[in-house]
């Protein structure tokens, strides 16, 4: 049995744990405010709130009910647009209405839920974060300018939000109904989920599996890993960082230690899907998905990460770059699961950069992505790791380019020479994300971008182009 609180009501159901939440809400529970636009996490019309009990208080985030398996909401508080019903409109609803930020209205409940999730966060609001909260919501009518104005209104309404007792403050100011104050107690009453079926299909956040094969998973036994405590940690010890398999992109992005080591972290991760997808999608999911353009994999390849695998009591470690054997083929045994991923914490003088270009900058799959880690001492490259996505059958670690770079002087000619090697060791194909000629050119450009961005004084783009054209 799956138990959770839906708005103000305790639900206990024997529906399959692989049923997606939106179907339960709409067609089992007949609450029609949550809309279905795409069933693949790309439109946000089905956005709902998920509240999780942590240390006595409920923390909320936006999730996509079209991709969330019912099994993953056990013990949670799920809030739909109906759950915001009060006598008066909430400040979020009022702003969207006042600013004419709703036309056909079909996407609107999703926007309301995203902005409400933003309001419920403990951290202070600003304009950028408010806008970011609707980064997963597509509107085809308004052109978004009115929604931007509504978001600004919401942001100013949140100016005096209290960091402690946030929910109380929000109830007082009409953002959420009073019953939110009773949820923590109610969630405590729900018992931990029944034993997971360890032999079932492993499912993390569901953001890829439920796009690919929701119908199969409906009937399948699932091994739900999302709330597995052993897989939820980000730890630093012995000069290494360990990231649990079920850690999602938001948790990495918000991790203060990681932010210290990677000052650009938030900017990089903002290019990865959208806020609600990042709230769900896990590191291990992105790795085993084995998509050639997996963004997190590109990131971790440049960290020269190690994958920690576990099957029963047998443990195994393998460099991430050796995990992939072919298109969607992994060096992974039956029932062997990724438990965590670790990498050596970069030394202070190391620099890191991540680049991604897609048709649409945000919430899109890369045409090409790439990450680099470099250490340059006295003008000589002493360490290099380079990844490239979208240019090979699997996420690519550029062995030859790395070999060429290490030991060389950091110079325009080195980079130009390396670019040539890089373009020879990849094998892009033409598809919906671009022709192979484009992907090659784009990778060269992004490779140059790494250096132009990391070494603005030493490396100049125009000289790189000149060097390349002359060679």
């Amino acid at each position: 049995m799956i138990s959770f609180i839906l708005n103000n009501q305790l639900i206990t159901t024997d529906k399959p744990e692989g049923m997606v939440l939106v179907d339960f809400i709409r067609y089992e529970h007949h609450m029609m405010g949550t809309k279905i636009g795409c069933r693949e996490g790309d439109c946000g019309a089905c956005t709902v709130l998920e509240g999780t009990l942590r240390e006595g208080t409920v923390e909320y985030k936006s999730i996509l009910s079209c991709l969330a398996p019912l099994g993953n909401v056990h013990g949670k508080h799920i809030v739909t647009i109906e759950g915001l019903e009060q006598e008066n409109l909430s400040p979020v609803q009022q702003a969207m209405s006042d600013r004419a930020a709703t036309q056909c209205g079909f996407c609107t409940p999703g926007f309301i839920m995203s902005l409400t999730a933003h309001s419920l966060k403990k951290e202070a609001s600003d304009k950028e974060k408010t806008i970011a909260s609707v980064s997963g919501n597509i509107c085809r009518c308004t052109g978004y300018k009115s929604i931007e104005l509504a978001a600004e209104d919401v942001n100013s309404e949140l100016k005096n939000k209290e960091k402690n007792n946030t929910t109380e403050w929000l109830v007082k100011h009409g953002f959420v109904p009073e019953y939110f104050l009773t949820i923590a107690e109610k969630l405590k009453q729900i018992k931990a989920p029944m034993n997971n079926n360890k032999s079932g299909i492993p499912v993390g956040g569901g953001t890829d599996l439920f796009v690919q094969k929701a119908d199969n998973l409906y009937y399948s036994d699932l091994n739900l890993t999302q709330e597995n405590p052993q897989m939820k940690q980000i730890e630093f010890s012995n000069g290494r960082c360990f990231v649990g398999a079920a850690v999602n992109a938001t948790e990495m992005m918000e991790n203060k230690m990681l932010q210290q080591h990677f000052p650009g972290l938030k900017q990089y991760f903002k290019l990865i899907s959208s806020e609600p997808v990042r709230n769900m999608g896990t590191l291990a999911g992105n790795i085993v998905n084995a998509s050639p353009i997996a963004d997190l994999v590109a990131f971790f390849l440049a960290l020269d990460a190690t994958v920690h695998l576990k099957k029963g009591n047998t443990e195994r470690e393998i460099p991430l770059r050796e995990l992939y054997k072919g298109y969607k083929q992994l060096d992974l045994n039956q029932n062997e699961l990724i438990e965590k991923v670790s990498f050596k914490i970069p030394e202070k003088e190391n620099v890191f950069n991540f680049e991604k270009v897609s048709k649409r900058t945000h919430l899109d799959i890369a045409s090409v992505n790439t990450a680099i880690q470099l250490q340059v001492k006295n003008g000589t490259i002493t360490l290099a790791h380079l990844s490239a996505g979208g240019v090979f059958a699997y996420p690519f670690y550029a062995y030859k380019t790395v070999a060429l770079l290490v030991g060389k002087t950091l110079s325009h000619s080195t980079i130009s020479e390396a670019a040539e090697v890089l373009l020879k060791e990849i094998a892009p194909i033409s598809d919906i994300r671009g022709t192979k000629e484009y992907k090659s050119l784009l990778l060269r450009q992004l490779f140059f971008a790494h250096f132009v961005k990391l070494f603005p004084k030493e490396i100049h783009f125009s000289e790189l182009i000149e060097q390349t054209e002359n060679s």
Partner: protein
Amino acid sequence: MKNIDSTGHVTGKSLYLDDLPLRQDTLFGVVVDSEIAHGHILSFDASEAKNYPGVVRILTAKDIPGENQIGGIIADEGLFAEDSVHFIGQPIALILATSERAAREARQKVKIEYKKLRAITEPREAAAKGEYLLPPKTFASGNPEKQWDKCEYIFTGSTEQAGQEHLYLETQGAYSYPLETENLMVHSSTQSPTAAQRTIAKVLGLPMHRIQVDVVRLGGGFGGKEDQATAWAVMSSLGAYLLNKPVKVVLSRHDDLRMTGKRHPYSSDFKIGFSKDLKILAYEVEYFQNGGAANDLSPAITERTLFHTTNAYYIPHVKATVHSCKTNLPPNTAFRGFGGPQGMFVIESAIAQAAMELGVPSSVIQEKNFIKENDVFYYGQVAKNVNVQKVWNAAHKEYGFTKKQKAIEQFNQKNTLHKKGWAFMPIAFGISFTNTSMNQARALVHIYSDGSVGVSTGAIEMGQGVNTKMLQVAEQTFGISPDRIKLESTNTTRVSNTSPTAASSGADLNGKALQVACTAILRRLKSLASDLFKVPASKIQIKDELVFANGKKTGWNWEKLVYEAFMQRINLTESGHYATPIIHFDKEAGKGHPFAYHVYGLAFYEVTVDVIRGTYEIDEVDVIHDFGKSMNPIIDLGQVEGALVQGIGYTTMEELAYDNEGRLLSNSLSTYKVPDIYAVPAVIRVKPLKTGGHSLAIFKSKAVGEPPLMYGLGAYFAIQNAVRAFNSDFRKFDAPITPEKVLMGLYQKKEKTVQPSPKTAKANASK
């Protein structure tokens, strides 16, 4: 006044098709469609699917009691394929089951054998093989052939434009159930309830009066539910009729993307000639329109392309021809702008090409050729109340472009990693259905004895706010509080023979019809008041719910007057009819006065291209728009912004792609990208042109749905100019201008562009 649906929308209470409560025993339909783009059906084996748990029945063409025909303008499209298939996604059968899941799963069990034939996906290939939907259509004036000798400069070139997916957030769907004695109730997400009604009647072999189509609202339409909503309404009705049970058909997003038509792709050739002072003397253009596998609305879209061939310019000698080509893609269909953007893109490309060759900004050529008062559009309509030059002047005064252009030039001199570009996009868009007979509408008004008012019109609410505007018409005509007025669903039994809500005409046509109805009842009420207060009816006024006689309060209010009218047996119901005056058009001659009026406007773009990555951002768009006298500024502004951004999507990131087999590659929202909140221009400024409006527009407030979409074309030219600031060899007219095309354009070598190829714009400056 904000949209009357706002509160319902923000609380999630507004109902859409898929939200309607289900009746007992509802069956769910899933469409079985062709897996190949062209071929013969050798065998269709649904035996396993029929036995799948939950499946009740599988319907094919053989089950149709009437005609297997859904073609709107030309009868060339079956509801279900019979012997042959002509596009991937073409419906062959409908599986009816007790759950949507069962029907979907059963679909996997249907086995169809085909004999594959060669698929055509490109219009020029179709033309080369003589595959046309219609004979070529030409509009002309003067004689360009005789002008070329007189031209100082002549340029020729070609352009490519891909299609565009509507991506209404609510997918297509319908829900039908039997009423007694062979009557059907049909809820449909359609812009054309009457087309659905007529077609259901035809397919079922019933008279139209037995079919009641009801529409509350659409979760977006954009033209995609004008003709293409019909099929699903017919299918659900066929099931409901044959099985005597409620049947719901709602397409999944993937089915919707695969099965429905899009905006027409065009491939075009132009020749343009100028005098020494850059006046356009002659223009010849041939459009190869990718119509898909059936006509759908292509004949009408063809005409609108021809009407907008010269955009906002006066050209004395024009010859324009559309070849409507038959390909093995889903029938392409209406999409906001309706062929207009395609025509305008070519003339703007021709001007841009000339400007590049001559080394002047396009704006120099644009400004010299604007159409003026009493000039004649090349299809014969005399231009009246022309606002092009006014819009241009107002924009320059409001926004000060010279300064901006200078700043952009300086930016480009200083910066090596980013380049900026700018462009102007002027528009002149004709308002009316180009098919004259469709320019009519009806409205039905009831005043109930308690003073509340019910309004029914033929207009469909799909986010554009037409219902709010209808309410304003009733409110202002009667002089009562908006709270008294309710907009009813659009229903073919209440308002018959509706035109589709399309061509930006919904508010004008239905608003005028509503005005007629309200005015007639008001006349009766005033006549009653005249008797009561012994003053002439002309001295009676109703304002803010109060009845005035000779400008003085009478002590009577609306409620009292209405009740008195009811007691005196005065008719409180009225149906209004409106037909646009003046307009006419001779389709054979290609001459007439097809439009009630034109909407004008100008957009200025400033964009920045990232020279390393090939990505771009639209920094600013400054618009002066001819709203007429806007009756609802906040709704009209939303239309301008929304259309502008949809137009920008069309020319930048929205890339529809089919493979050679006719398979849609951009078949999901992960591969077809529309603008998100980060993709839109950082700043959009929209200011109204100060004008008195046009009397053929409702309350002099001009139609606003489609015209601003064409501002979006400016994004193409601004980005092109930014690329050219880095690589002046780049001169392709191939929309959309994706980051891929930008990057390839930034680094393409000159010799590559000069190679003659039909797809590459090739310039020949003669003389």
